[in-house]
């Protein structure tokens, strides 16, 4: 395509690398750049402020390994892994939510709502009950529980092709049932374990080290490009299964693959930080609205998720200084605001 395409949001040129071609959307690109800048700003605040304020020079020294041991400890052992875990988990959740919302063609679809999170909670509580002591082991329990719940939801919703809307409804049903099972398991556990499980269920970044950031980084490195390549099939899928079939996209295999990517990202993120509420729900929609696009873009959603979680964590640590709150509480509050906004602007005008 050459020459400017008048009146269209896309630029008139395409970037071609071998079989791939990209057509940058100028406003989306601008929004992504702005989000990246904001993310860097949040990172600087997260690294420099706190109980021991540091200067930018000290941070750079610490990252180059030439700082005093005290500063080095604060930066490379405390603040940096926490920041990275938060940003990576946020990005993973943002992409996961964007995929799910496109698949379900519904702005409220997210791992929080369709049963993945409740399944992860069941797995985590079971892990606590079996005596898991490290956060990583609890994460593995959550991974198993969430994955089983997601597979069960998919299989239960599947009937001559799993229509996306049914997926969401079945997920809500499974989620509601698992919530009562969780409440029951919590009464059966000793009070100490029950409190630990409850704390994990809020989702937080306290005591997160490099071991929590690395798996999420690896998952994003593999799954984000896969999602972008497979995401080209999202657009026809959003037209409905019949139209997608007419355009030559086989709906079910594409949907299955995107669903697997979405669940895998949510699972890894949840294993690292617990079920952080609402990032997956809000990030794709906020990014989409900023970009003025018709559907959530994956890169924008990832950046928005990272920014949301990193900034929320800074808020959670600095606002409640005597006892820092888990970040999940802040994101839940933001989620409430987002829902109120949906209430004011979103559905009401539509039939």
């Amino acid at each position, binding site marked *: 395509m050459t020459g400017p395409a008048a009146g269209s949001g896309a630029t008139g040129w395409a970037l071609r690398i071998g079989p791939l071609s990209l057509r940058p959307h100028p406003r989306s690109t601008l929004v992504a750049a702005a989000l990246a800048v904001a993310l860097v700003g949040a990172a600087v605040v997260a690294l420099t402020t706190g109980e021991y304020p540091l200067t930018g020079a000290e941070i750079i020294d610490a990252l180059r390994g030439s700082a005093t041991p005290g500063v080095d400890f604060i930066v490379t052992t405390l603040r940096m892994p926490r920041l990275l875990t938060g940003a990576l988990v946020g990005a993973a959740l943002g992409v996961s939510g964007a995929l799910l919302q496109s698949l379900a063609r519904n702005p*409220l679809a997210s791992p929080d709502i369709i049963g993945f999170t409740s399944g992860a909670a069941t797995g985590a509580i079971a892990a606590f009950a079996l005596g898991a002591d490290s956060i990583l082991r609890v994460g593995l329990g959550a991974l198993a529980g969430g994955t089983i719940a997601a597979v069960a939801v998919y299989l239960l919703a599947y009937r001559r092709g799993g229509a996306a809307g049914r997926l969401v409804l079945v997920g809500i049903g499974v989620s509601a049932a698992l919530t*009562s099972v969780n409440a029951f398991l919590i009464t059966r556990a000793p009070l100490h374990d029950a409190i630990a499980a409850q704390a994990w269920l809020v989702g937080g970044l306290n005591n997160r080290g490099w071991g929590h950031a690395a798996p999420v980084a690896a998952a994003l490195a593999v799954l984000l490009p896969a999602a972008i390549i497979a995401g080209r099939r999202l657009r026809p899928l959003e037209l409905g299964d019949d139209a997608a079939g007419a355009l030559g996209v086989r709906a079910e295999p594409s949907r299955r693959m995107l669903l697997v990517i979405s669940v895998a990202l949510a699972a890894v993120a949840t294993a690292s930080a617990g079920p952080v*509420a609402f990032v997956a729900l809000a990030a794709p929609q906020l990014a989409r609205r900023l970009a003025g696009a018709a559907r959530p873009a994956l890169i924008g959603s990832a950046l928005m998720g990272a920014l949301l979680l990193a900034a929320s964590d800074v808020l959670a640590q600095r606002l409640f200084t005597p006892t820092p709150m888990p970040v999940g509480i802040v994101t839940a509050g933001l989620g409430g605001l987002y829902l109120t906004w949906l209430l004011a602007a979103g559905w009401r005008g539509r039939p």
Partner: protein
Amino acid sequence: MSIDEGVRPTLATDGDPPAAPSRRPPDHRRWWLLGTALTLVALGALSLALGARPLAPEVVWNALTDPDGGEAAVIVWEHRLPRTLLGVLVGVALGLAGALMQALTRNPLADPGLLGVTMGASAAVVVGIAFLGVGALTGYLWFAVAGAAGASALVYLISGRSAAPDRMVLAGAAISAVLLAFTSAVLLQRPDAFRDFRFWDVGSLAGRGLDVAAQTGPLIGFGAVVALALARPLNALALGEDSARSLGAAVGRTRIWGALAVTALCGAATAAAGPIGFVGLVVAHAARIIIGPDLRWLLPCAALLTPSLLLAADIVGRLAIAPAELSVGVVTAVIGAPVFIALCRRSRLGAL
């Protein structure tokens, strides 16, 4: 009560139209109603007799009629009678609330648990326990009612005027997720509140005294009377808002009274027993299958069937892992979730 005036009696089907020869099959509905009533009585008796320590029927009878302070009398009067009565009360409330919600919203998936109403009650109870020092089960009542009212209003607002079934369920799930996060956040800061709350949150009939039944009873009674009185105008509303209006039904008034009744019923039931999901949904559909869609029959039928289901679930919970107990909320969720999923699979609702 003036609600009933919404529809002129001549439009209803009661009374025999003289000319029309009856081509309908004989009406079995009263027999079905009688059958469900007898089932409830039988399950009530079983609920008094069965448990970790089973009692013979004549022992139960003796303990009831002539309480001598012996072991059987203590078991019956202190433990099984309160939970059976509470099961009946909560069951009536949840059954009527489920059927009423489905009729009001014309949504086959409406259920107090799924639409976030019970979660609203939970969140308000947490506020009561954690910040206002409410300790006893009896103190939860008005918090639960207020929370139920707030959550149902919010879900209704979010899902908008069209109130499509899937949209309402999604809005309910979203509200539930916010409230759940809020609840967890509060509990995390207040381990002492958590200790009380977790035993309420599980949804159980055990360990509640007769005073809980006595306190929630009047509110449930009020809700039940309003619900039954609304049967006729709601029948008209089932034809659609415009048709109902042209038939002379007072649509707005019916909605408001209906919402009041649902809030009172759900709030009181949740305060008494904790969140119990899915029963309202399951029973409303079962009742529609056996007795038909006429709400004048459907509502009483749901009010009799739900306590039966709840008592049966409670008995199963007592026996399944005896001497420990599964709480009734878990049993109903395990029974109810498959029904909900089957409903989603069956209808065209899946197409969002």
